[in-house]
Every structure is written in C-alpha cells, then in structure tokens.
C-alpha cells in the first residue's frame, strides 16, 4: 500500500479528487439551501461547448484554456436562463432544461467538428463527457487549484452577505445588500466548481457532486458553517474514494464511481443522521408510543379537568394527540375498557371527545399523589 500511495499518477488523482470534492461541497451547500441544485446540472452540460472552444483556441489539450472556455459558456448559459425567465412567461425549469440540452447539443456538434478534423491531437476530449481521473497530470492540477482557490476565497470574503441572502433574501435586500449581484457572483462561483470537476467527473455527472455532499451534510448539521465544512469533507471523501477505485480498476470511468459513492453517502445520511435521519425518527416515534403509558394519558385528562375546575370536563381526542405528539386512540380505548374514561357526546362535526369517570378521577388522583411523592414537588 505505501508503494501504491507513492505512485505519481495516484497522487495526482487523489489530490485532484480531494480538490473537486472540497470545492463542489462548499458551493453545493449553498446551491442545495437556495433550491438551486439543478443549476449545477445546466452549467455542467453547457460547459461542454466551452471545453471544445478552449481546445480549438489552444490547439491542444491545454487545461487552462479549456477551463476558461468552459467557464465562459457556462456563465453565458446562466445569463441566458436569467433573461428567459425574467423577460418571458417561461419558468425556471424550462429555462434550465432548454439551456442544458441546447448547450450540450452545441458541445456535441463542436466535438464532432474537432474529431473529424483534428487527427490524433483530439485524443482525450471524450474524457470530458464521463471524466477520466487517470488522465490527470500534475500540470492539470494547477489551473484546478487556482479556480478552487478563487471560489473558496470568494465564499470566505462574502460569508456574511451570502449567509444572509441564503436564509432571508428579502431581509438581505432591505438591508441594502446588492442581492442581484451576489446571486450572479454565487452562480459564477458554482460555475467555477463545476469547471474544476470536468476533467475528473465529466459534464454529465458533475451535477451529483454539487448536490449529494450538500444534501448529505444538511441532514447532520443545523448551522451553515458546520454544513459547509462537512459538505466539503464528504465531497472530498467521495472524490478520493471514487478516484482511487477507478484508477485501480481500468475500464471504469471515474465520474460514475464518484457519483455512486457520493449518492451512497447522501442516502446513509438521510437514513442515519441523529436528528433528521429517517431511522432515528422512526425509532423515536416507536419509543415514545410504547413508553407513554395509559396512566400518563389519564393524567393529562385529569390535569385538564382540574384546570377547568370541572370533573366532567370533555377533552377532544385531537388535543390529547397533539399534546403527546402521537395517536392516543389505543391507550384511550384501554382506559375505556378499564372503566376509567368514557367517550362523551359531541356534535356531529366535532372530533371525538372523552371524559373521566368517577373511578377514573380517583385513579388519576392517586397516581398524581404517587408521582409527587416520588419526584418531589416538580411533577
């Protein structure tokens, strides 16, 4: 394994993949929170013609000009999208899908134009479709580092305004922030992240690198800072893991492996995260249901009756449900079977009501006294 890690190509792959993971994780966190997840998809597809234009201008597979071209057409497509939605009846979804597919079509046309004229020098342009990590050279890493550096610096410098704009755009506008310009800047920075990843992940799948780490981190964190940091870490994890797998198993494109790893991380987060995770939430509901005894529900009815100074006070079942945060029907039925409560008469358009019986009142009072003795005055 040490020999493997010292391998020059693998070093490049892991460095590049970590870079992509961090940058797309950081900006993806904002994209997911601002409901702009699919912007990355459109930007990535629309970057393909730019890749070809950059290649044609440089006359060779030169990363600097290819990334410059990709950035240019990505941002141009974003501006067209804004123009379409602002000035016509078209909604954002149609504008996104139109620019994504037209951009990709232009890219395909340019790609075949180069291929049928270029001879051998066009080798490697195809790898921008699905990404080819093993083709990454040390020279490719420098423009990636520069772009990632610019985007991260931008996020750090604009942290406060970006945060405000993400959570409360209306308030941000009222306080005099140039919200429109900030939005354009953020879009440009997402484009930077997308362009950084084109070489390794490819135009088709870069969207997943923007969305999956952000969506995963959202499940674990309640604060923006925590979410951005975790998103970067998870993105880097998926990038390095996928890069390694595809570099070691020739024939596997890098992009799909990275994307499947990132999706797996997102799914695990959805299921397992302690507060928002689906399994912990299900467990808590189950736990609460089995641990809320019939006595506690009887107690609720008793307390309500005491508050109203009426032993025959009728309590709506919905109110008991809401108070305990669960369906209390089974417990109430048990209490009714034990003769402690009875269903009360109610109007036809009202929910079901319950009231205590005399035994019920005695039972609840005894229970309350027992609790007071055990827990002191607090209960």
């Amino acid at each position, binding site marked *: 394994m040490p020999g493997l890690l010292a391998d020059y190509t693998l070093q490049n792959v892991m460095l590049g993949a970590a870079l992509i993971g961090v940058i797309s994780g950081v900006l993806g966190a904002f994209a*997911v929170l601002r*409901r*702009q*997840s*699919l912007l*990355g*998809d459109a930007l990535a*597809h629309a970057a393909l013609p730019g890749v070809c234009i950059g290649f044609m201008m440089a006359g060779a597979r030169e990363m600097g000009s290819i990334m410059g071209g990709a950035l240019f057409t990505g941002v141009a497509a974003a501006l067209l999208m804004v*123009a*379409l939605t602002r*000035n*016509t*009846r*078209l*909604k954002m*979804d*149609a*504008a*996104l*899908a*139109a620019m*994504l*597919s*037209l951009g*990709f*079509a*232009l*890219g*395909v*046309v*340019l*790609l*075949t*134009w180069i291929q*049928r004229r270029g001879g051998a020098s066009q080798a490697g342009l*195809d790898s921008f*479709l*699905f990404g080819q990590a093993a083709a990454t050279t040390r020279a490719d890493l420098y423009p990636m580092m520069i772009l990632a550096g610019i985007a991260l610096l931008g996020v750090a410098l604009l942290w406060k305004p970006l945060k405000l704009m993400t959570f409360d755009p209306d308030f941000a506008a009222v306080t005099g922030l140039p919200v429109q310009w900030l939005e354009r800047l953020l879009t440009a920075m997402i484009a930077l992240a997308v362009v950084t990843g084109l070489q390794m992940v490819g135009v*088709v*799948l870069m*969207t*997943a690198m923007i*969305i*999956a780490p*952000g*969506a995963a981190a*959202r*499940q674990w964190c309640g604060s923006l800072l925590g979410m951005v940091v975790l998103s970067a870490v998870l993105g880097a994890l998926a990038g390095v893991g996928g890069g390694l797998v595809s570099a070691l198993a020739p*024939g*596997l*494109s890098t*992009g*799909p*492996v990275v*994307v*499947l790893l990132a*999706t797996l991380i997102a799914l695990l987060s*959805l299921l397992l995260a302690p507060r*928002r995770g*689906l399994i912990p939430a299900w467990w808590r509901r189950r736990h609460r249901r089995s641990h809320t005894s019939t006595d506690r529900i009887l107690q609720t009815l008793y307390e309500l009756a005491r508050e109203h100074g009426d032993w025959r006070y009728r309590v709506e079942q919905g109110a008991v449900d809401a108070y305990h945060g669960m369906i209390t029907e089974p417990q109430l039925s048990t209490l009714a079977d034990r003769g402690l409560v009875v269903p009360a008469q109610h109007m036809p358009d009202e929910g079901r009501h319950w009231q205590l019986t005399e035994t019920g009142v005695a039972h609840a009072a005894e229970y309350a006294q027992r609790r007071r003795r055990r827990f002191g005055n607090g209960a």
Partner: protein
Amino acid sequence: MTGLADPTVAILLTGMLVGVSASLLGSFLVLRGNSMLADAISHSILFGIALAWLLTGQTSGPVQIAGAALSGVLAVYLIETLTRTRRLRDDAAIGLVFPALFSAGVILINVFARDVHLDEHTVLLGEIGFVWLDTVTLGGIEVPRAMLAMAVMLVLDAAFVLAFYKALKLATFDPDLARALGLAPGLIFYVHLSLLSGTAVAAFDAVGVVLFITFVVVPPATAYLLTRRLSSMIVLAMILAAASAPLGYAVAFWLDVSIGGAMALATGPFLLLAYGWRRWRAWQQARAAGGLQSPSASA
C-alpha cells in the same frame, strides 16, 4: 436502397418522428413546470437499457423498450418518495436520483457490455447516421428498426393525448379540480411519464439520451412564447420540432458534424427568434402605452 431504407430518408424521417413525439408529450411537461423531469427520465433510462441488454442481448424490441422505460418511471417514483420524506427539496431529489441511475448504467456497460452496439458514448450521443443500416422487413417493405420503433411510440403517444385530451388539460392546469372531478391526475401523470420514458428509449439509438431532452423542452417552450392556446401550442411545437430535423441535417451535412447534435441544436434558433419577437412586442407595447416612458422601464 430505395424507399424508407434510403439513408437520407431514414435519417430525416427518424429525426422528425423523434422531434414530433417528444414535443407532443413535452408540451404538457413544460406547462406543468416539470421540465427537469425530462432530464431525469432520459438520463435514468440508461440503467434500464443496460439491464435489458444484459438480460436479453438486445437494445431494441418492444420488451426491451417497455423494460427500459420502467427505469424512467422508477426514477420519478424515487424522486417523489425522497421529496415526501421532507428531508430534501424536489430539486435536490431530482439531482440525487438521476445521476445515480445513470452512473449505475454506465458502470454496468463498463463492466459487462463492451460492445459495438452499446457503449456509453452511443447512449449519450446516439448515432442517427447509422439508423438505415439496421432494418426489418415489414409487409415486403424494408424499414429501419429505429424508425419503426419511433413510429409505434408516436402512435401510442398521439392516441393517449387524443383520448385523454380533456383530462390531460385539466390535470395540467388545475390538478385540484381534476381530482375533485374524479379524474385521477396522479394516474394520468404516471401514464404520461411512462410514455415519455418509452419514447426516450426508442429515441436513444438515434439522438442519445441528452439530445432527446432538447426535443422535449425547447420546441414546446418556443411555442409557449408564441401562443396562448394549448392546442395551437402543441401543434406549433410539433411543427417546429419537425422543421428542426431537416435544418439540422443540412447543417450537419455541410459542416460534417454529428447529425443528432445538429438536429437538436437547430431547435435553438427558433427559441431565440421567439424570444426576440416577444421582447420586440413588449417594447412596441411600452412605446404605444406611454409616449415619454422609456421602454426599458416597463419591460
């Protein structure tokens, strides 16, 4: 080499069939604000195509098309399920589901199916230039297989839209009213998207899964800018899509570039023209309304 198997005729007719059937179904998608589902479906069918290929050794044929179309429906179902957990917004759910299914498809092809008929580039870009090579004989006439598949899908799509036109219209513009009238908009939605998946599978030979999105979204979006009636919007979208095929073919022939790419790209100028016309009309109206008012202020 005459008739439908003639290369030029085969390429043009197949391209037009793809455009017409995609924009017919796409019109309702654009109106409902679900255009990105076209993106999700057409990427996700790759998983189904790869699986169908692994199981049957074929990528065309009714069973394969129906089977592969299921993965498009699966994508829609997964997106809805993820959204319903309320842990993710719908845009993030779309962006999480289709890249995963697409990646799974690419990896299946990478690992099992290194083959001339099915590699990930063909799936992505299509090869309409070769549709005339693969023909079947139908009643004594030689018909390209892809063209036949597209024609069958177009008939199915048209039959669905004609039979359920009223219900589709209501489910698109007022799903609540449709539900109240007992029209099951959810069911109509799923049938509509199943047909879209099937059409995408039939079209992938010709234009690939990404270029298919162009025909689903761009002609209907263009028509939406030009008319306010649903029926004329659909007809106009189908005409624009059909016109894009010969236009793109001419450009591809002239510049020697991808035919499918050029056909898809040819829908773009129409959108730009429609946008320009809208802007010009808005400017005219603004000038007519207030003589001294500057046009940009009311745009």
